[in-house]
């Protein structure tokens, strides 16, 4: 029996770590997707932002965020109380004293593995921001924002649901984070974009949109495939436990549904693009995959695979129209992050009611609104303070020359491009 407990603990910990590594890999996915969809002259800088934000997220979440989001005892449903650092690792002897029934009341996998899985989620949320504000935001204010988002804003709203706060009590359902992660990231991004304004020349005075094609679509496609792969960890790991038949079945269902939602998203986005533009816009197919993935993330377990496909397909449709709609509002998002993570994140929260009998539309809307209102307000304040203090936007000339030279001092592709693009 002892051995069985040890093995369960070991298997669940190992599962958690592998799933967490898959999610960590998504950092590369965001970096490649964003680097592929900006212009060559802004590529080194977006890469720098991506690797640096990941580092910042890890450090801040270690120091503050984790304790804030998962306090031993929250003060109340809204406020967890201030806490720092990690708790202790589980004591093997104590684990073994637990009887079968109590087992799952505590999280009987390694506490460190839980931190690892959680920290890569924070980084995901922050990665969403970097894409939307690309090609015009200064590097250092961005990293400062990353400090605040990953240390405070994300953990606080995360506490509301996953830390056992008021949204959890209100019956709000968000299995793997359509809201807690994706909507949060997209809202913070939107706040930044609103204060930042569009890239120069993106919107013409006659109201028409001036497309600014991404420099490297294979990179963007690679990034999307990485995200798709990493999402098996994102959703699959959110079951938290795999070591018995029911949970193993659950994880398998999540893998299948996650995959089908992405497939549905690609098919739908490509069809909509074909219909509207007459051509098969690859970048829309990529956004469709991500839209589908975000859409299923709030409830990847319960839907049958056919429904998962449809939920993803709806996400694929929404993401395309969302991109065009935001462009009409002159909200300039070079990579489509606000549409894919924000609009589809909201849709994902709502779609929970299609399959989960315990979900209620009203609870879902409460969650959706609480998260987006709080993150919007908090982010606007931080961005505005940064703007007032040190400025968040590069100069026109720097924007023309490209932020690679002005912020990083190097070019991403020094031999491939001519400077007059």
């Amino acid at each position, binding site marked *: 029996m002892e051995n069985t407990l040890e093995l369960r603990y070991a298997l669940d910990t190992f599962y958690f770590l592998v799933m967490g590594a898959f999610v960590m890999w998504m950092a590369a996915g965001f970096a490649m997707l964003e680097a592929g969809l900006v212009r060559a002259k802004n590529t080194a800088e977006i890469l720098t932002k991506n690797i640096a934000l990941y580092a910042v997220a890890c450090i801040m979440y270690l120091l503050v965020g984790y304790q804030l989001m998962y306090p031993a005892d929250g003060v109340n449903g809204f406020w967890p109380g201030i806490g720092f650092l990690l708790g202790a690792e589980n004591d093997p002897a104590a684990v073994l004293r637990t009887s079968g029934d109590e087992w799952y009341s505590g999280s009987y996998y390694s506490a460190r593995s839980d931190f690892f899985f959680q920290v890569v989620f924070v980084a995901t949320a922050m990665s969403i921001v970097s894409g939307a504000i690309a090609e015009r935001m200064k590097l250092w204010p961005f990293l400062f924002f990353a400090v605040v988002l990953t240390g405070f804003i994300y953990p606080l709203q995360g506490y509301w649901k996953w830390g056992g706060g008021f949204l959890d009590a209100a019956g709000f359902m968000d299995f793997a984070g359509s809201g807690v992660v994706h909507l949060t990231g997209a809202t913070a991004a939107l706040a930044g974009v609103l204060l930042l304004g569009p890239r120069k020349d993106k919107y013409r005075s006659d109201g028409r949109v001036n497309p600014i094609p991404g420099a490297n679509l294979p990179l963007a496609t690679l990034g999307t495939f990485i995200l798709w792969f990493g999402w098996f960890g994102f959703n699959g790991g959110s079951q938290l436990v795999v070591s018995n038949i029911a949970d193993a079945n659950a994880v398998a269902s999540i893998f299948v549904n996650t995959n089908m939602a992405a497939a549905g998203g690609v098919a739908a986005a490509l069809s909509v693009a074909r219909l509207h533009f007459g051509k098969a816009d690859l970048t829309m197919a990529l956004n469709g995959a991500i839209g589908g993935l975000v859409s299923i993330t709030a409830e990847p377990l319960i839907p049958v695979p056919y429904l998962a496909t449809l939920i993803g397909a709806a996400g694929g449709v929404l993401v395309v129209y969302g991109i065009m709609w935001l462009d009409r509002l002159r909200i300039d998002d070079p990579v489509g992050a606000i549409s894919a993570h924000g609009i589809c994140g909201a849709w994902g929260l709502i779609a929970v009611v299609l399959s989960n009998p315990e979900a209620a539309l009203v609870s879902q809307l409460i969650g959706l609104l609480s998260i987006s209102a709080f993150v919007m307000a908090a982010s606007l304040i931080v961005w505005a303070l940064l703007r007032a203090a040190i400025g968040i936007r590069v100069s026109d000339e720097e924007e*023309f020359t490209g932020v690679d030279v002005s912020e990083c001092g*190097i070019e991403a592709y020094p031999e491939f491009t*001519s400077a*007059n693009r």
Partner: protein
Amino acid sequence: MKLITAIIKPFKLDDVRDALSTLDVRGMTVTEVKGFGRQKGHAEMYRGAEYVVDFLPKVKLEVAVNAAIIDQVIESLISAARTEKIGDGKIFVTDLEQVVRIRTGETDENAL
């Protein structure tokens, strides 16, 4: 007929093209070039070592025009391309002895 060759700053290309369109200029040919002149390149750093980028990106514009309108073209070219900062570029004028339109075989003024 004359060939006007102008070396300009890349981001002025659209302005220049728009300016010339208002005149009777029906076509032009554009080449990406690198320029070397009074304007000095900027110093960059790569992994701790400094270096100077000597050659600056410029755009070369070639426009064949009727000799009659040459002053007009140069003038509007200058006013569109000028930033009054060093490195604005040069205009060269050479004589064109013959022009042919490949599609029709038309020659000289008719071919412009």
